[in-house]
């Protein structure tokens, strides 16, 4: 182990200074999501709005980061512009290893820079530079400039925002090393509110390994399991894009604002077709041999006489759903071009796709006019959607600035809340049934990965509210532990509690290994408590009408069952998150 406590870098953008803090709590909260919540308790302000300069933007890694494969993620925590409550988002890229080798367990950023700035931080680095000339720049070209301004290629991570973040869109993302994102809940807007265009984390330290052979031999075992067995094939081969065809087949793929769950025209955007026709290569997060990042390409004719340009675009399931099926796109180049535009603008792709799907239906139904949308929105029309994405990120008019604050915010003004596909935030692409809808609507991150609700739907025909909710609570607890380590959730099939215990022991965290069950409970509790303190009321969450009209392979959704699940799950969450009086 490197140390038994947390080492936290606290950056103050007002003064342009940094402090190094030491904090206890490893055995109660492990790291990652647990550590982030603890730091929000210390530095956050539950009673002030998300864009108050004093609110912290927190990044945290776990005790095994860098030590074991697929311990390759970072937790980002903040008060969300989406609902002004505490929120978390997870991403990989090189962020986690850069933090590990930059010698920090967490990075907390507070204050607001006077001018648009870029921050560089590492074990022996601290610098805050004015980059006002990057205002309005897209995320990718910003990356090119920042790359030349700071040293450390290959052993640094670069986090940056696009115009959406600067304009404080409620679902602006933070781009991490081009192909990964702190996507959900608007972390990009928090950076924007801090006048921070980019963060470079330089990982230039190394640490001695634990004595003895236990660690290297366990590493070898885990590595072999991940690379020599078929466990990870799904992620490496077709990648999550493989779900497109499978979910369509199951009648669980949202199409055209969830008016359908199946479409025979799915072919061009299935994982198989993407891999065969559009895949250039795979890439990986640092420290992960699986390589689930799939990079495709678009090419465009920019002049007569066969003059083409091409761009590389990362794709996976969520993207193919959000700007593919959800918008009725059935051409793979069209889908990739939309992904590219979302990327450049620095928006969360799921929210963008779902918001535009709602806007399309709203326009069809005459609730909004073309004057408001500036381009005619119609399912399948990629060029107009590309323009609309830019309008969203740049808040071109009142309609788009409202929509960029969330679909329900726009629906409050224009109507159409019934067909808004919002489950806490704009939905993820799993129209699997009642359990998933209730789980995502209420879940901590409003992510399909909070719990395995989508897979529960696929495995259970029977309707048993208590059984389903017990599953959600327990499943969350096990994932919470992984998210405190902070493992990629794709590795959950490999990292059993037993293996996590051995891994912790092998690097010297014996006490942590022994404390796992209580630790998991602590982390689950402190996350929910922090959320509740910032205003979350699970009982107030509603599931829009559109979700009651969904027909899956099991038949029509049962609204009563869904309502019973929602009520009971809300009760359980509020029980976990209850803040004691002392």
């Amino acid at each position, binding site marked *: 182990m490197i140390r038994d406590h947390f080492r936290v870098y606290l950056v103050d953008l007002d003064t342009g200074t940094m402090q190094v803090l030491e904090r206890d709590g490893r055995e109660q909260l492990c790291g990652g999501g647990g550590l982030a919540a603890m730091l929000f308790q210390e530095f956050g302000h539950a009673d002030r709005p998300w864009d108050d300069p004093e609110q912290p933007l927190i990044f945290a890694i776990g005790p095994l980061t860098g030590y074991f494969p697929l311990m390759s993620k970072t937790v980002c925590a903040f008060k969300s512009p989406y609902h002004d409550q505490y929120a978390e988002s997870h991403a990989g890229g090189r962020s986690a290893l850069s933090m590990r080798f930059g010698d920090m367990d967490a990075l907390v950023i507070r204050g607001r820079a006077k001018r648009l700035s870029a921050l560089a931080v590492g074990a022996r680095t601290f610098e805050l530079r004015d980059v006002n000339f990057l205002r309005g720049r897209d995320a990718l070209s910003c990356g090119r400039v920042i790359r030349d301004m700071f040293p450390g290629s290959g052993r640094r991570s670069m986090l940056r925002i696009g115009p959406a973040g600067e304009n404080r869109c409620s679902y602006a993302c933070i781009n991490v*090393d081009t192909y990964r994102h702190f996507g959900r809940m608007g972390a990009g807007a928090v950076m924007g509110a801090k006048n921070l265009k980019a963060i470079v984390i330089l990982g230039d330290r190394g*640490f001695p390994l634990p004595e003895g052979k236990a660690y290297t031999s366990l590493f070898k075992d885990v590595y072999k399991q991940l690379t020599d067995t078929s466990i990870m094939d799904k992620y490496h081969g077709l990648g999550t894009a493989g779900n497109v065809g499978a979910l369509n087949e199951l009648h669980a793929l949202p199409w055209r604002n969830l008016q359908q769950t199946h479409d025979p025209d799915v072919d061009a955007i299935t994982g198989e077709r993407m891999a065969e026709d559009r895949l250039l290569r795979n890439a990986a997060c640092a420290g992960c041999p699986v390589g689930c990042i799939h990079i495709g390409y678009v090419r465009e004719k920019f002049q007569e006489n066969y003059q083409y340009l091409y761009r590389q675009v990362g794709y996976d399931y969520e993207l193919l759903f959000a700007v593919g099926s959800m918008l009725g796109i059935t051409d793979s180049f069209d889908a990739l071009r939309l992904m590219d535009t979302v990327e450049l603008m620095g928006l969360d792709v799921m929210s963008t796709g779902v918001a535009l799907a709602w806007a399309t239906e709203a326009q069809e139904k005459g609730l909004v006019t073309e004057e408001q949308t500036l381009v005619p929105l119609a399912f399948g029309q990629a060029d107009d959607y590309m323009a609309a994405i830019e309008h969203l990120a740049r808040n071109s008019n009142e309609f788009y600035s409202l929509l960029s604050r969330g679909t329900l915010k726009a629906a409050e003004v224009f109507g159409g809340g019934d067909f808004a596909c919002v489950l806490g935030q704009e939905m993820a692409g799993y129209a699997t049934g009642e359990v998933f809808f209730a789980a995502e609507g209420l879940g901590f991150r409003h992510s399909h990965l909070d719990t395995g609700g989508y897979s529960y739907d696929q495995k259970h025909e029977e309707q048993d509210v208590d059984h389903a909710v017990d599953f959600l609570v327990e499943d969350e607890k096990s994932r919470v532990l992984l998210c405190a380590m902070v493992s990629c959730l794709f590795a959950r099939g490999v990292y059993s509690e037993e293996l996590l215990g051995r891994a912790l022991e092998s690097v010297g965290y014996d006490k942590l290994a022994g404390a796992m069950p209580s630790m998991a409970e602590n982390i689950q509790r402190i996350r929910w408590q922090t959320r509740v303190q910032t205003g979350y009321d699970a009982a107030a969450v509603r599931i829009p009408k559109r979700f009651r009209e969904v027909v899956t392979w099991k038949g029509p959704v049962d609204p009563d069952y869904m309502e019973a699940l929602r009520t009971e799950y809300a009760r359980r969450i509020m029980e976990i998150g209850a803040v004691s009086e002392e």
Partner: protein
Amino acid sequence: MKKLTAARMERCIGCHSCSLACARLVHKQLSWNKAGIRIRSAGGLSTGFQARLCLACDPAPCAEVCPTGALTQRREGGVIQKRKLCIRCGKCAEACPVDAIFLDHEVNPYLCIHCGRCVEYCPHDCLEMVEIVSERSQPTQEEAS
């Protein structure tokens, strides 16, 4: 005698498993740069990856400038490293034409010793140990006479 080559870097996914393995197994470090092989991207991840590693020169410029014998010429190419003899002057890194020697902040040199332990940790088979075709082992007329 064999040397490590990064023969198929077009396949590289940038996982750093090779560097982490070298640091772990050879240099007893948790690191992605205190290693004989380091992975970098030329201009962000879109341009793919390059590996920085020793090309097994013969004669080896790094050994030639090493004043203490910490680096000595390996038969047929590359160097043998004896860390205990190193005074951390950093001359080797300056002399290497391909930036294959990493100096940490204490000026400890890290370079590839062509042991091949990283090879089995590359999931995409980018790395390979190949027999060195040495010019020395085929003496020229002059040397032979």
